[in-house]
């Protein structure tokens, strides 16, 4: 019988403006929390997966992190699918454990994106970090929000999506963050606040855009038979998928449809479940438009219906499909490339029934979705609190 792996520990550093902690220190905070949560011995970790950071140059991120933690893993990997890295990292940890390459894999990612440099420098470095093509896009002056604004404008043109519908996503994420004690931005906002916030790159306002934060998260993945002597029941990966339909946005001819179509199709097929079976969807939310397009591409509504789908509280707690219940990148926290990893942590928390005030009642199946580049590379996981 196939050796099955599950997620048995999760941890977060403090998220927000965390002055005076380096990327490696934030990661260590999260690791210690995850190890304590799992109830494993630190020395038993024999696999390590991480993502790159952008605030420092690490020649081999998994080696740098392992060395900092003082461990000598039998398996190391740096997973780089930009914003989808954190989600994909968990799938690849499950593969490493199920194939027998290691028994207890640690996934960790995070950085001090906010306090390392000024916010202006973070914006400039993200604009020139490769999301925009260095020769054919950067010279025209897009900020990262511009690249997603091009998707939003086209979506509005094709389907009549409105700025108020985009704003509804931001308002919902802020409401969720208000129920998350570790979230970065917790004060409630209204649709009028979003529409009245500074225009960054039309049609995206400041509050349509992810925030910039410090923070790290960690997860422990191990085999089902090791779980007997652990504190937590494992959360299982039931299905996963990857997709990529374009690299850069400028030469892509179908702006409103992404590789999430492919990653979602494969994840649902492997898990053998339907969209209507999903209790909570932790969906990557770098911009408000991202959530609307992903809901469509993942099959929760028809193409073009995403704007109407997010209205009326449908994606909020208590709605038909609670989405990104920790507050996401829009409000919960966004330490850059590792930000999507927090969506996995929240999915696990929901499936354990440990999400406190923001708990989705009787959550048994969670979808987690990561997106990297400019809606370019996608990874979808379906997690469950039982193995089938």
């Amino acid at each position, binding site marked *: 019988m196939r050796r099955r792996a599950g997620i048995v520990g999760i941890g977060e550093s403090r998220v927000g403006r965390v002055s005076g902690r380096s990327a490696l220190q934030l990661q260590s905070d999260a690791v210690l929390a995850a190890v304590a949560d799992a109830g494993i011995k630190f020395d038993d970790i024999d696999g390590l997966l991480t993502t790159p950071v952008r605030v420092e140059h690490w020649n081999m991120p998994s080696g740098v992190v392992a060395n900092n933690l003082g461990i000598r893993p039998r398996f190391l990997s740096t997973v780089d699918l930009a914003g989808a890295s954190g989600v994909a990292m968990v799938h690849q940890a499950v593969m490493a454990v199920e194939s027998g390459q290691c028994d207890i894999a640690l996934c960790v990612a995070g950085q001090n994106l906010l306090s390392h440099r000024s916010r202006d420098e973070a*914006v*400039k470095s993200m*604009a*020139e970090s490769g999301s925009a*093509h*260095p*020769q*054919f*896009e*950067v*010279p*025209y*002056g*897009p*900020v990262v*929000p*511009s690249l997603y*604004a*091009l*998707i939003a*404008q*086209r979506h509005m*043109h094709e389907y009549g999506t409105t700025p108020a519908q985009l704003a509804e996503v931001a308002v919902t994420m802020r409401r969720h963050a208000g129920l998350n004690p570790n979230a970065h931005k917790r004060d409630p906002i209204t649709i009028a606040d979003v529409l009245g916030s*500074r*225009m*960054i*790159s*039309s*049609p*995206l306002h400041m509050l349509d855009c992810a925030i910039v934060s410090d923070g790290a998260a960690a997860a422990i993945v191990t085999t089902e038979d090791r779980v007997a002597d652990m504190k937590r029941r494992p959360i299982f990966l039931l299905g996963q998928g990857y997709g990529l339909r374009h690299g*850069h*946005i*400028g*030469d*892509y*001819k179908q*702006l409103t449809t992404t590789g999430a179509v492919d990653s979602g199709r494969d994840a649902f097929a492997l898990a053998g479940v339907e969209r209507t079976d999903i209790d909570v969807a932790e969906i990557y939310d770098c911009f408000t438009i991202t959530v609307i397009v992903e809901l469509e591409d993942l099959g929760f509504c028809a193409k073009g219906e995403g704007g109407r789908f997010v209205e009326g509280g449908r994606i909020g707690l208590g709605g038909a499909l609670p989405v990104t219940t920790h507050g996401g990148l829009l409000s919960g926290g966004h330490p850059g490339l590792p930000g999507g990893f927090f969506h996995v942590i929240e999915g696990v928390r929901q499936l354990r029934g440990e999400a406190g005030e923001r708990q989705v009642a009787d959550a048994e199946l969670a979808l987690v979705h990561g997106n990297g580049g400019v809606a370019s590379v996608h990874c979808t996981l379906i997690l469950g609190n039982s193995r089938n």
Partner: protein
Amino acid sequence: MTASSDRRPFPIPDPATAPYWAAAREHRLSMTRCETCGEFHFYPRPICPHCGGARLAWADVSGNGTIYSFTVVQRPPSPAFTDMVPYVVAIVALDEGPHLMSNIVDCPAKQVRIGMRVRVTFLEIREGLSLPLFKVA
């Protein structure tokens, strides 16, 4: 059209893209075309994305196209663009098929719409380096 004060990050041509920038210098828009299937593509790739053919040649396109999407940038990525704000970043669908990013110039930002017909123009941003831009046709 020149702008000697232009401070934007400038493209650094590489072996795969040098013919594009060499053509732009002569105010021609040139792209890779597959000799097997006849389709243009952009950005330049070593293998035709339409048919997998590897025999590619550079050929000029008309420079005529339609605005596929656009955004008006109010918050620039760096001080190099501050004097241009607000400016339009657009994706242009060329009549020959390829899409490319550019700026729409010589048109008030609030008048730009998806579907507008546009035509290429060139801005010399430094000695020997011209950037293709588009203006309303």
